[in-house]
């Protein structure tokens, strides 16, 4: 049995490879994700073991909640007065203050140097952690030392002049030195200044972000931390470098973990698609082998042996898939790491953990074997009589069973999906995932029942317009509805998910557009250029300058802050109640709430109030970086432009937060000035604030849409692999069908079908399968999208958008995909020798 099975496998090497590749890509995605995230994890480990040398203890302000962004923007500063206290502690060799913030260098053509992702940083010179390679550290206020990667890439050397942008006015410096880029900055660009200069340009006069302390020889970190802590005023802490490092590392590890989970979800989708293809391939193989199986049974093979022969084949396919998958994964990880290195991030060698090999092997074999179970069962049902010309007809009950089972699985999936989305279960994401999986499975089962009429319908216009080859292709796609359906189902998953995110994204965009359209009353909005990391704020000086500028009627600032509610991170907005309602249209009741907001009070959203059972007039304890404050709830308030549930006044913000940067500034023109004139006036002021962008209503809307589009593109790219796998599935089915129809193809050629017509016939079959897959996918995707949009109503997604043009494009692309999938099978079919084909058994 073993022998026969393995011999059979070897005889069909190409088929084996083709089948395995469907799973191999999914395994490759999985392995690639693990290898890449392990490599980055190792990188993080390396950074934190090497970069901390030279510092033993850090002194910083205490925080009561974890800062999500990891930026220092909202951390309380350490007053300069603390430094002498620390310096006097016994065992301190040296202590120095440091400040860090947004600083972006301009290249020699005056263009800002922007690494793709990593931040652009500026900070005070760190005497013991940074090693200078040429020149000397910055000493005077007109000097800077920059990192060697930037210097090399943009051709700067010691003695050159370089202009640097800050949140405030930009300035030009003389490069006094170039230093070796510490690994820990992971691709950031860095300009360093003398401490006093850094404090000035980064707007931190009189304070530090932290104080770094180096111990005398023989004093341990923990001992020094204990001694320093003893002299610190209330609200500050001394942390040993080891624990500071592990905290930072933990935050990075967590981010990496989230990233890994997200990628693994896509790998799972790819494996799921691969499972369909394995199921389909094995079903076809068993059907083609009916005679052989009957013979085996006739000569005495037991059912168990038949099952084993199919499953052994599955195991072999799975092992090959895992092996190829690991190679693909290595290549993928290598590619991404190489891409990252090219952006300036130095990387270590790939890390291939034994766990990765085990996971890949398990995934490959498990997916293949589980998918082959049903076909294996079907193989055992072949009666021995088939060997001598009897026919094998499957039980008639199978259609009814399929309807019942398919409907049940679909219904269960929908139920899980709804439960997950509308909050009836503990782990909503798992429920949604399992639900979606079940819906796909159920629809795939049911689709076999409608595949024949669907293929007839889809193929009808083609055969009418494109003649006999298209007609024959259509007939072929109808002849085995189960095969057509499960081949199409593999594509359905990818298209369904892409359709789903497309609809969701379009709905979010439409909701955002509508909400901005209805609420934005300001003619102009000012926002920071970059949206992530450092430099997210607008220097408040800009607002003051604008107020003094002719042509500008009203300026209203909005700030964002983080705080903790029982240790849980929350976000608030700070605004000026008087002017805010001029730049944003509000419902009368919210305007009334704003009018009641005092500098000691807070407005909460109706949702938050309901969730916590608060009433107007209650006091709530808000944990700020500077300490906990009791704030009175002055009223209920919400505003569609912000997801923050809490609102305070600007004076309150200034009292509470150490750093003052605006997140958004709305501007109204003075009466009698045209928008163009006002734009010019604002533009002149902005010359001193190069990190701020000016937007009118359209631009402001577009800027918000851009994120959604970026996310959509990213998710679509990750789903692309699933679609490629589905294409392999179509190619595989076609190849197997062509093998099965060899004689028929020979006959067609004999009675005068040209090679081109034969290729075209195969192509049309593929196109019809592709279009069916896309249509099923879109049906599921539209449903998912609609459900999710309904579920996000509370988050401000009020509109359901149906981007018909884009969805139609997907159907067209699915047809094109079908054409691509058919190229090789069609070529093979056209190459058949007519006489051999006719004589083929």
């Amino acid at each position, binding site marked *: 049995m073993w022998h026969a099975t393995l011999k059979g496998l070897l005889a069909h090497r190409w088929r084996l490879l083709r089948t395995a590749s469907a799973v191999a890509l999914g395994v490759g995605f999985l392995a690639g994700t693990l290898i890449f995230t392990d490599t980055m994890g190792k990188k993080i480990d390396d950074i934190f073991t090497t970069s901390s040398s030279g510092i033993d203890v850090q002194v910083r302000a205490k925080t009561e909640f974890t800062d999500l962004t990891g930026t220092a923007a909202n951390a309380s500063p350490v007053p300069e007065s603390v430094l002498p206290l620390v310096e006097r502690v016994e065992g301190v060799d040296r202590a120095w203050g440091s400040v860090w913030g947004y600083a972006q260098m301009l290249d020699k053509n005056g263009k800002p140097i922007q690494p793709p992702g990593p931040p652009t940083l500026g900070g005070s010179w760190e005497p013991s952690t940074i090693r200078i390679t040429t020149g000397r550290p910055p000493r005077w206020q007109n000097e800077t030392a920059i990192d060697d990667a930037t210097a090399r890439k943009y051709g700067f050397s010691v003695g050159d002049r370089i202009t640097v942008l800050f949140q405030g006015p930009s300035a030009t410096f003389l490069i006094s030195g170039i230093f070796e880029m510490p690994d820990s900055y992971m691709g950031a660009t860095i300009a360093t200044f003398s401490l006093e200069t850094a404090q000035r340009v980064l707007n931190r006069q009189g304070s530090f972000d932290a104080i770094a302390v180096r111990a005398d020889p023989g004093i341990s970190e923990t001992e020094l931390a204990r001694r320093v802590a003893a002299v610190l005023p209330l609200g500050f802490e001394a942390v040993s470098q080891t624990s500071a490092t592990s905290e930072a590392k933990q935050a990075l590890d967590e981010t990496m973990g989230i990233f890994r989970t997200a990628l693994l979800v896509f790998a799972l989708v790819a494996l799921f698609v691969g499972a369909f293809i394995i199921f389909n391939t094995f079903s076809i193989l068993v059907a083609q082998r009916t005679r052989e199986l009957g013979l085996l049974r006739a000569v005495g093979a037991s059912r168990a042996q038949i099952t084993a022969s199919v499953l052994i084949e599955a195991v072999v396919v799975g092992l090959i898939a895992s092996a190829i998958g690991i190679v693909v994964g290595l290549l993928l990880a290598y590619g991404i790491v190489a891409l990252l290195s090219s952006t300036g991030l130095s990387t270590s060698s790939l890390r291939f953990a034994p766990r990765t090999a085990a996971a890949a092997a398990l995934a490959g074999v498990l997916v293949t074997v589980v998918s082959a179970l049903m076909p294996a069962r079907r193989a055992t049902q072949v009666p021995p009589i088939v060997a001598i010309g009897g026919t094998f007809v499957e039980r008639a009950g199978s259609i009814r069973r399929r309807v019942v089972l398919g409907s049940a699985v679909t219904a269960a999936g929908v139920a899980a999906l709804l439960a997950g989305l509308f909050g009836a279960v503990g782990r909503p994401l798992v429920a949604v995932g399992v639900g979606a999986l079940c819906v796909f499975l159920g629809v795939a089962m049911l689709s076999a029942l409608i595949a024949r009429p669907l293929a007839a319908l889809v193929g009808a216009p083609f055969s009418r317009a494109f003649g006999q080859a298209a007609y*024959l292709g259509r007939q072929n796609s109808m002849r085995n509805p189960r095969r057509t359906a499960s081949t199409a189902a593999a594509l359905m998953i990818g298209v369904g998910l892409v359709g789903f995110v497309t609809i969701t994204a379009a709905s979010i965009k439409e909701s955002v557009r509508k909400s901005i359209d209805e609420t934005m009353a300001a003619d102009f909005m000012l926002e920071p250029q970059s949206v992530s990391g450092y430099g997210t704020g607008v220097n408040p000086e800009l607002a003051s300058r604008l107020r003094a500028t002719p042509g500008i009627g009203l300026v209203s600032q909005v700030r964002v802050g983080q705080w903790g509610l029982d240790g849980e991170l929350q976000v608030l907005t700070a605004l000026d109640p008087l002017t805010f309602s001029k730049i944003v249209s509000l419902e009368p009741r919210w305007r009334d709430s704003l009018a009641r907001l005092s500098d000691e009070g807070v407005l909460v959203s109706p949702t938050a109030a309901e969730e916590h059972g608060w009433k107007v007039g209650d006091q709530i304890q808000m944990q700020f970086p500077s300490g906990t404050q009791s704030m009175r709830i002055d009223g209920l308030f919400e505003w569609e432009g912000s997801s923050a549930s809490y609102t305070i006044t600007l004076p309150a913000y200034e009292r509470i937060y150490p750093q003052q940067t605006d997140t958004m500034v709305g501007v109204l023109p003075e009466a009698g000035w045209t928008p163009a004139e006002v734009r010019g006036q604002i533009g002149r002021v902005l010359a001193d604030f190069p990190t701020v962008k000016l937007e009118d209503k359209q631009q402001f809307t577009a800027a918000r849409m851009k994120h959604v589009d970026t996310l959509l593109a990213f998710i679509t790219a990750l789903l692309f692999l699933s679609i490629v796998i589905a294409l392999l599935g179509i190619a595989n089915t076609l190849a197997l069908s062509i093998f099965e129809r060899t004689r*028929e193809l020979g006959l067609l050629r004999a009675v*005068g079908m*040209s090679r081109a017509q034969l290729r075209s016939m195969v192509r049309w079959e593929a196109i019809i399968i592709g279009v069916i897959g896309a249509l099923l996918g879109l049906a599921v995707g539209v449903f998912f999208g609609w459900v999710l949009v309904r579920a996000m109503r509370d988050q401000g997604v009020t509109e359901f958008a149906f981007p018909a043009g884009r969805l139609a494009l997907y159907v067209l692309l699915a047809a094109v995909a079908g054409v691509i999938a058919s190229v090789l099978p069609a070529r093979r079919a056209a190459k058949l020798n007519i*006489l051999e084909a006719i004589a083929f058994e």
Partner: protein
Amino acid sequence: MTVDASTFPPYLHVPPSRAAARAIDAVKLYGAGDTAVHALDGLTVEFERGTFTAIMGPSGSGKSTLLHCLAGLDTLTSGNIFLGDEDLGALSEKELTRVRRDRVGFVFQAFNLIPTLTAAENVTLPMSLAGTKPDAEWVDRVIDAVNLRDRLSHRPNELSGGQQQRTAAARALASRPEIIFADEPTGNLDSKSGLEILEFMRRAVKEFGRTIVMVTHDAGAASHADRVVFLADGKIVDEMLDVSATEIFDRMKRLGG
């Protein structure tokens, strides 16, 4: 009339002929060197228009190879095949396909029909492939001649073996090809169904003026033909006109078939 193939002079110039198809000095080699097998060994034969010829011979005599080469399904190692005045050897693969589609009809022993097409669609398949409109009146006549009128909308798997062969025969005739090749058309049929096919082929020649070349090893089937050509070892060894099944059977016995 008995003609010894070796007495024919080599054709240097080919004059216009009344023949629907001709093979001249046809050589077909399988394999190479010492193991080469002459399936056709310098064979020359003509098939006149409006005649029904049966080709007989023992297995391995080359009769199927001859049929395939005449029909443009296979190519000669040397020599020429003419369909009317067209030298098939000079045609490209594309042109050969067109010849098969427009000028030749086929009936194979089995598996003659496309399972996804109805009987009617199978009958008109060559015309559909050519993208031409079938001559409805003619197709109707052919369909009535094979007595398929009430099976037209059926798929092949809903037809009996005899009905399937009749459908194939109707297809072979439907596009009014110059010549029809039949490869053991009755080989898989019971005697009654076989007789129906043979009678139909005879009618096609006598009433519709078609040309048919049929390979068979059944003397009874061959007796329906106007002329029987005997092959052995890739050569024509004998020819008989209007003979009975018994005479053919005797001749075959002497050939060792």
